[in-house]
């Protein structure tokens, strides 16, 4: 098996150009603000700085055009609060 975890994925994804264009579509992700507990994991781990914390510390999608659908934020959200509109 390959032992590369998301660590390597982070590096690989950071250098990749974004093939998704969200200019006319919906935002790339859906965030369930009722379930989100503002743990900051998604905001800190996103390699493309898509999120900004709101005043409660919950993520808002500040830069949807940067999102590469790399899966990192939703596989690490402990509260199942993030799902993708595209994957």
């Amino acid at each position, binding site marked *: 098996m390959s032992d590369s975890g998301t660590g390597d994925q982070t590096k690989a994804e950071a250098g990749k150009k974004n093939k998704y264009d969200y200019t006319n579509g919906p935002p790339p992700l859906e965030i369930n603000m009722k379930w989100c*507990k503002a*743990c900051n994991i998604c905001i800190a781990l996103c390699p493309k700085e898509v999120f900004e914390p709101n005043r409660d510390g919950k993520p808002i999608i500040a830069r949807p055009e940067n999102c590469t659908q790399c*899966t990192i934020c939703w596989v690490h959200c402990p509260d*199942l609060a993030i799902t993708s509109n595209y994957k």
Partner: protein
Amino acid sequence: MTTATKNKKSQKSSVILDYLRPNKGMPSVWCAGCGNGIVMTAIIRAVDNLGLSKDEVVMASGIGCSSRMPMYLDFSALHTTHGRSLAFATGVKFARPELKVIDITGDGDALAIGGNHFIHACRRNIDITAILINNNIYGMTGGQGSPTTPSGAFSTTTPYGNSEKHFDPCSLAKAAGASFVARTTVYHATQMDTIIQKAISHRGFSLVEVISNCHTYYGRLNRMGDAVAMLNDFKNRAVPLAKSKKMTEEEMVGKFAIGVLHQEEKTEFCDVYQSVVDKVKGGK
């Protein structure tokens, strides 16, 4: 990550929501950022990738923060007494060998209170997938030291640092006879899916140790920071198995190997028992 993901269905990220019990308690009771939730979603993805139906999966758990998991997931569930989940799981598997039995346990639950059940489940090599969420401390009861609290580490019962040696659950399981032993961390969430898939597919006792964060107690008492800091700490300390074999003991101090550490083909308990039954019945 090829072999185990072969039977992968087209997976939407929202698939995780299909496996939750309707109207049952989400958001979870876990602290913000607790690794238990990351393990829960990895289990869902693994079950979905394997194409198992909800009724084919039984989830057993004991007592502890991690053991709340079966209450959120829409599988057949057993929330049992402290440390005894593997005994109940053994009963279920024995009575209905066609079901996939997943046992969710924590470091205190599996190795202290349930230590005996743990080694004997390994010894029998019964086809159960035990997922041991190791956060090095008793979270639910207030941060007491557990059998995996590292020597020197702080907990509410070791305020001057732990003077005991700690268990390595993977070595213990292998020595006791488990035929599949793997370790991963909540940081390596995609690796975790694949490992859990392999563990469920493996015939025999499988242990998956998931190094997880209890920033509320372990992190706070040992000044390791919040959930994000602990996840990054796991990233820095985890070494893929192949690489760890090339490293010297000094280089591995404070680090740990991740990946499938041990796998072998071995006779499984239910199979052996069935053959005994057949023999006795045939001999009448």
